[in-house]
């Protein structure tokens, strides 16, 4: 549930930055830092698309996966937990690189980008913990839990 909620928040933040990038929103609300400097720099594009749009896609996939994982049929599903951890891990590394660029190269901080970095980092931590608990509770690891899971 936490991953789904955080993914939705991340999606909204990424959508906000994407709308600015494509000109729908004229000005970012940015009381701390210089959001516009960061979001108009050359590093605000990645493979021909706004970085924020990539973030939107990642958060959307995370949201869908986490909602799938909440369905009784996929409760405790290891593939879902692995996919969530993998995508969140890649997103965290990408966000760490972007934060490095903000601090060391652009010399400007975008508070919305930092918010997104914190969100994706938290999703990754929660996903890792979830993956560990799913792995520990695998039916082949504990026969009693196997019974319990089949009875669900």
């Amino acid at each position: 549930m936490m991953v789904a909620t955080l993914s939705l928040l991340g999606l909204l933040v990424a959508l906000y930055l994407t709308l600015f990038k494509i000109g729908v929103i004229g000005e970012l609300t940015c009381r701390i830092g210089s959001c516009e400097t960061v979001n108009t720099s050359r590093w605000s594009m990645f493979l021909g698309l706004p970085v924020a749009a990539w973030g939107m896609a990642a958060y959307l996939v995370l949201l869908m996966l986490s909602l799938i994982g909440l369905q009784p049929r996929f409760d405790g599903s290891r593939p879902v937990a692995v996919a969530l951890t993998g995508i969140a891990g890649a997103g965290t590394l990408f966000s760490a690189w972007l934060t490095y660029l903000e601090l060391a190269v652009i010399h400007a901080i975008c508070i919305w980008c930092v918010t997104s970095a914190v969100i994706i980092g938290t999703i990754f931590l929660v996903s890792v913990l979830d993956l560990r608990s799913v792995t520990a509770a695998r039916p082949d690891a504990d026969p009693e839990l196997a019974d319990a899971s089949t009875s669900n």
Partner: protein
Amino acid sequence: MDSGRGRRANVVKQQRQSSMRNFYILLGAVAVLGSALLVYNGSRPKVQVTTVDLPPGSISDAEGYRYGSASAPVEVIEFADFECPGCAQWSTVVEPDVRKRIFDTGKASLRFFDFPLEMHRNTLTAANAAACAADQNKFWEMHDRIFFGRADWATESTSRPDKFMASYARELSLDMGRWQKCFDDRAHQARILGNKAQGIKLKVGQTPTFIIAGRMHAGGPSYDEFAALIDSATKAAPKR
């Protein structure tokens, strides 16, 4: 015993369903609230308007860089910084339309004033490059090229913007000997800072800022907003 376990399983199932229902409600509420904030932000006027005391003649005709006919019924004064992202966005996205449909048709003219902000380390270099291009009647071509290439030469990209300016000057087929000397000597720096001083006197607080018919509009208006401001200024302007 079995029926007791069954009842417990039912209770657990109901509790789970109820907690999932609450969760979906919470998720829906976050989605609705977030979307509402985005819609509010998107529909918020992009410019803040204040009235400015600008009696006729308070800015000399010789100041700024003019685009369009001096006899146009409305004169727009723009204060902009070449390194400001909002100015670059306005210049590359909105201004081409504004020129074609408003300035080129004689409905209004524009006077551009440099307003180099200290936080932008490369902006004065750009302002000087454009001023030296103006000596060869290519200010607007240079203005457009500088704004278009902003991401390449801005502070976050390079500490040596001069080579970008020189390459733009070459692209525009300027007399490079004259342009380079003017640029290296910072021949127009005093005028550029004078333009900024004019803005400070008028209490310009951000870039871009437009002054239209005595009203100061801070921020970059969309084409429709700009056209509406010109229409209303035209109606209020004395007939020439």
